[in-house]
């Protein structure tokens, strides 16, 4: 009886030690995997921080350049409001603004850009006011007066600078719209 219990004790102790070692090894492997993950994460975090700092500096540098394209596709309503505001800003009489015809935006090939054209007709306008209209447009992002057709308006004056013109303008809006978005 004694010998059996003694043998069992020895066996139990051996198994207990073996189980302890096995558990230790499992814990060790778990710690090792944690360590490896932590090292990998640290490396990634360092790289990410470096990239963030780099991109932050680049963004700051780019922000000093003028905008060539708007970031959002302005709605037709907003666009009309903007053009009306530009007309007002250029001291062009409201009655001279005859029409505003926005068109649908189209993608330029396979690029990340879209383009939308808007036909504007202003009659009886002096060239100087057209220049003011251009200045007002320049304050808007990505809005260009690309095309114009001038024909002599009614009641022309002696000088080309002071005579009035009927203007058909094509405003071009460049919109940055990445295809991945």
């Amino acid at each position, binding site marked *: 009886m004694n010998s059996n219990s003694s043998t069992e004790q020895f066996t139990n102790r051996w198994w207990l030690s073996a189980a302890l070692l096995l558990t230790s090894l499992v814990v060790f492997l778990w710690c090792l995997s944690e360590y490896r993950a932590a090292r990998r994460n640290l490396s990634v975090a360092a790289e990410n*921080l470096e990239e963030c700092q780099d991109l932050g500096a680049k963004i700051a540098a780019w922000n000093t350049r003028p905008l060539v394209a708007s970031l959002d596709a302005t709605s037709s309503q907003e666009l009309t409001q903007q053009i009306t505001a530009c007309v007002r800003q250029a001291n062009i009489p409201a009655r001279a603004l005859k029409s505003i015809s926005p068109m649908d935006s189209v993608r330029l090939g396979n690029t990340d850009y879209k383009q939308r054209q808007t036909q504007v007709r202003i009659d009886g306008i002096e060239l100087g006011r057209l220049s003011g209209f251009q200045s007002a447009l320049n304050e808007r992002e990505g809005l260009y007066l690309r095309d114009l057709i001038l024909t002599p308006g009614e009641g022309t004056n002696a000088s080309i600078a002071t005579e009035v013109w009927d203007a058909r303008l094509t405003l071009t809006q460049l919109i940055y719209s990445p295809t991945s978005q």
Partner: protein
Amino acid sequence: MAKAKAVLVQREDAWFLALAERTEFSQLEPICDSQADPAELASAVVQRLASTNGRVFQLAVLVSSSRVFHSSFPASEIGGAKNSKAIPYRLEADLPLSAEELLADWSFGEDQSVSGFAMDRSWINARILALVDQAKESGFQVEVGLLSARSLATCQSLVEQGRVPESSILLIENADKIEMFKLESKVPTQWRIMHSSSSVAEWKLLLADSSDPVFILNSSEPNDWAQNLDRPTTLLGDNQEQLALKCASRLLARPRLAWINFARDASLVGGGDQVQQNWSRLLTVASVCVLLVAGAIFYRSFQLKAETARLQAEQGVVFTSTFPGQRQPAAILRRFRSEYAKTVGARATNSAEVQTPQEAIPILGELVASLPLNIPFAVSELRVEDGAIYLDLEIQKHEDAGLIAEALGSERIRLGPPSTDSTGEKVTALLRGTLQAGGKP
């Protein structure tokens, strides 16, 4: 904890125990009858051990020669010395015990022979187990470090003390028995137990095949037979018990030096217990080491995670400084990338297919400023379309068209040759031009 040493010796008549006092063993004291059952023996030993201050005892057990069997055979019979696991199975052929029943130890002779010793496993296990268990119950621990035959220990002691050459014949006289050891380079290759009444003729026959010197260790006056062997013999007057105790004392400290030690067998309970305990201890120590290393690794992981968190917080700081007033997103880097792409996209067309539209008003301004004042003309239509210029004029003479074109042309505005047409009295001119890239306004 220091281990106290003790030697348990079985003689034909009784079990004896000697305890170590510092470096020397006390005299052997009889503790119980030689035929005592395991429990009685254990009880007697434990009682004696309990009277000392020791708590952990290293025990040498030297059993009576009658409990140990011997057999010699060539190593070739087991397939060479390397195949020592086969020795117990070879021994069972010569001994009244099966391989499973015997506890074996052996040594190899210079002539590639095996000198194998064995004892009844169950007989010794029962005694050692009882002893170990009773010791535990009494609060101390007993480890069997040496288990051998008393006369083997005596024999080894004599050789190690130089009293007997490494190759010789040693006769040990015990009461009515005489044990004969034939030693070859410290290996007992023959072991016979003769009755003291054996005749001179029998001894002569036994010793006939050897010319080695004969030594006789006897506890009393030499018998007649020894003087009639017709060969030189040396009588040794040493005390057998003291020789065995000295040997046991030395071998307990260095059990590997024992010629024969059955406690080497890991399956021996008591001795095996020690082996198991060693294994158990080794596993525990290994576990602790592994856990310590794991702890160190975990601590380092914790540090790395803290450093990672700091770097991630720093990303937030960079974001706030780059985009003040904006809510910090979860994926800061992704936001940085998209913002950068938007910034670059909105401030520089990044494709050859996309060109910033050419504004018409500056071209118009240049044209108006360049119009000649000394030539009469009227503008019918002026078109600027993405840098291309179309000017429809009414002029008085055909040659005025060239003069006007020359006046309007500049480094930036290149006009082609004008075309003129007259309808009745009116002369019309059409000027076409383009804006040159890079030209100074």
